[in-house]
């Protein structure tokens, strides 16, 4: 009994349970769900598809986790994704003969740098001017798609340069889609930084009590600034993957509402939205769970416009379970049961 309680109260229990539930549901509903085929040395299957799409969300959620850990939010991520795609695609150009104006690597680096600048802007507003995170990032949320359109001159740029498709799909000869490698690399980077430096601890202490962190000698401004820059970079990388998947820059729709999914992943992963202790592992599983949920609902024949209803129910359910009052109610219920047994 004690052991069971320990497992249930573990921070990873909820996301893992939700993911397992979804996977079992899928396994029963669609028999071919777990089959993976090999064609030309590449792996194909529903699970691979989910991981491919989820990789974008994982990268976004990484950035979002740190921002939320400091007690903030970054609602501009979706718009920054659009900017990233717009910059990269307009640099490569939409030449029909499949050539590129500038080397693709350079275009990608510039796109991510521009997004880092977006992060600098957010970070400046939040850390230096002490504007509430939601309001500060609202500015870029409003302007971002406009800026992206400005860059693409209001058009969707379709890229015909072949290597550009490699980012969002697979490089010929590789068994897995590139997105999974990118996401894995990002996760590895974050884990390494966490292990080798105390940045993670600093971020947490800022989220728990910024004033106390300041008193102990931490440079709170710099830490908050950095998490927003990192969030911008993550959104930039996610934007490249998204643009490569559709092989185009779509200022209006690229990354639309993605920030909401990212926040949802982080919340599902057990990180409290009020900041403080954060769980990178939880966010990653959370992101995969959200993507699995989306794919499952699509497979059930639910249209993309109707999808939000179910997502909303999931959000409310998660928050209810996480809330203190609900925990107290559950504990009281449990206590009553014990008394009855005695």
């Amino acid at each position, binding site marked *: 009994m004690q052991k069971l309680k320990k497992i249930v109260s573990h921070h990873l229990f909820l996301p893992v349970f939700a993911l397992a539930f979804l996977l079992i549901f899928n396994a029963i509903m669609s028999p071919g769900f777990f089959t993976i085929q090999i064609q030309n040395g590449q792996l194909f299957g529903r699970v691979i598809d989910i991981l491919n799409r989820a990789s974008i969300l994982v990268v976004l959620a990484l950035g979002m986790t740190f921002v939320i850990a400091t007690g903030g939010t970054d609602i501009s991520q979706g718009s920054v994704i659009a900017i990233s795609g717009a910059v990269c695609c307009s640099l490569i150009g939409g030449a029909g003969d499949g050539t590129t104006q500038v080397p693709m690597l350079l275009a990608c680096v510039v796109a991510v740098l521009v997004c880092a600048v977006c992060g600098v802007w957010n970070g400046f507003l939040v850390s230096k001017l002490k504007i*509430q995170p939601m309001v500060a990032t609202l*500015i870029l949320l409003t302007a971002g798609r406009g*800026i992206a*359109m400005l860059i693409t001159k209001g058009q969707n740029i379709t890229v015909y340069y072949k290597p550009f498709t490699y980012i969002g799909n697979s490089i010929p000869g590789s068994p897995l889609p590139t997105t999974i490698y990118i996401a894995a690399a990002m996760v590895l980077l974050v884990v390494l930084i966490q292990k080798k430096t105390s940045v993670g601890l600093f971020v947490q202490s800022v989220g728990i009590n910024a004033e106390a962190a300041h008193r102990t000698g931490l440079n709170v401004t710099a830490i908050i600034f950095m998490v927003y820059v990192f969030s911008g970079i993550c959104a930039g990388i996610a934007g490249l993957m998204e643009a490569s998947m559709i092989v185009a820059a779509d200022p209006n729709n690229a990354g639309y509402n993605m920030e909401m999914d990212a926040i949802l992943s982080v919340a599902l992963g057990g990180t409290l939205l009020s900041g403080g202790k954060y769980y990178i592992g939880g966010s990653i599983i959370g992101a995969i769970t959200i993507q699995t949920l989306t794919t499952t609902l699509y497979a059930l024949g639910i249209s993309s416009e*109707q999808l*939000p*209803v179910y*997502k909303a129910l999931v959000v409310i359910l998660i*928050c*209810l379970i996480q809330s203190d009052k609900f925990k107290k109610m559950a504990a009281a219920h449990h206590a009553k049961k014990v008394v009855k047994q005695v």
Partner: protein
Amino acid sequence: MKNLKNKIIGSKHFSFGVTAVLFIALYAVGMMNYRGFLKPQVFCNLFIDNAALIIATIGITFVLLIGGIDISIGSVVALTCMTSAQLLANTSIPAFAVILIVLLIGVLFGLVQGWLITEFDMQPFIVTLAGQFFARGLTAIISRDTIDITNETYTAIASARLYIMPKAFISVGVVVALVTLAAATFVLKYTRFGRNIYALGGSENSAGLMGLPTKRTKIATYTVAGFCSALAGVVYSWIMLSGYPLHAIGMEMDAIASSVIGGTLMSGGVAFLPGTLLGVLIQGIIQTFITFQGTLSAWWTRIIIALLLCVFIVMQTVINRSRQRINASKT
């Protein structure tokens, strides 16, 4: 001299003053550059085009006053339009009953959101985000295609022209918006509920210690926001005469922007409703500019609004700091 400066910056209505000056300046620039701005009808059109946004902004201002947020507005507007369209097209419920029903749905929506936020101490952002998802999805479940509203009462209201001057008219929606504005201003200024809201926004803790009913006030505030969203939806349906799942996407962000430009402090406790009206009208002017200009593309509207938003937010931060300094030097 310095005293005067401190007095001006320290004044409660400084933000409102800046907004008013900006509005007049923008209009004057418009009149100098485009002859169209001289027509009284262009001024009335600012109201006609933005009637729904004015009501939505009133709703969000209530919520911002207590330091909360409601990002479900645009979706509730869409849900309202769709429900009205569906009920009018496929049932024989009379138009006024339909309006009552959708307003009730809005109230219920706000009530549930407020209850979840207050009773379970959930973050308003997440709850209303879920509300946004839910309402938008529900709209699509009712119908994924456009449903036109052909009801006679609705079309009559939509095409009604109320002349306030020989050559200038307003719509029924504008009347509804202005009446709502007047009522909301009255409630905030002269009723116990309104004062509780201001107290709650100043400091929830202090308000609670003073014995004010913080929980009830909070739930009521979100209910008011839900009602305003639904009312905005009704007015929006008179303009659009249809229900469509993608109606009013992002309206909540426009409403928040208008409210902030109009002098509302996002941290709560400070707002002046006539100022928020100007916030909406400034957005309207920028749109009119871009329409008259002709060569500028639509996305400039968003960039300029974001810029304005930015300027106002930074200005508020600076004002707040100097106000604190003034207060500190007083004591």
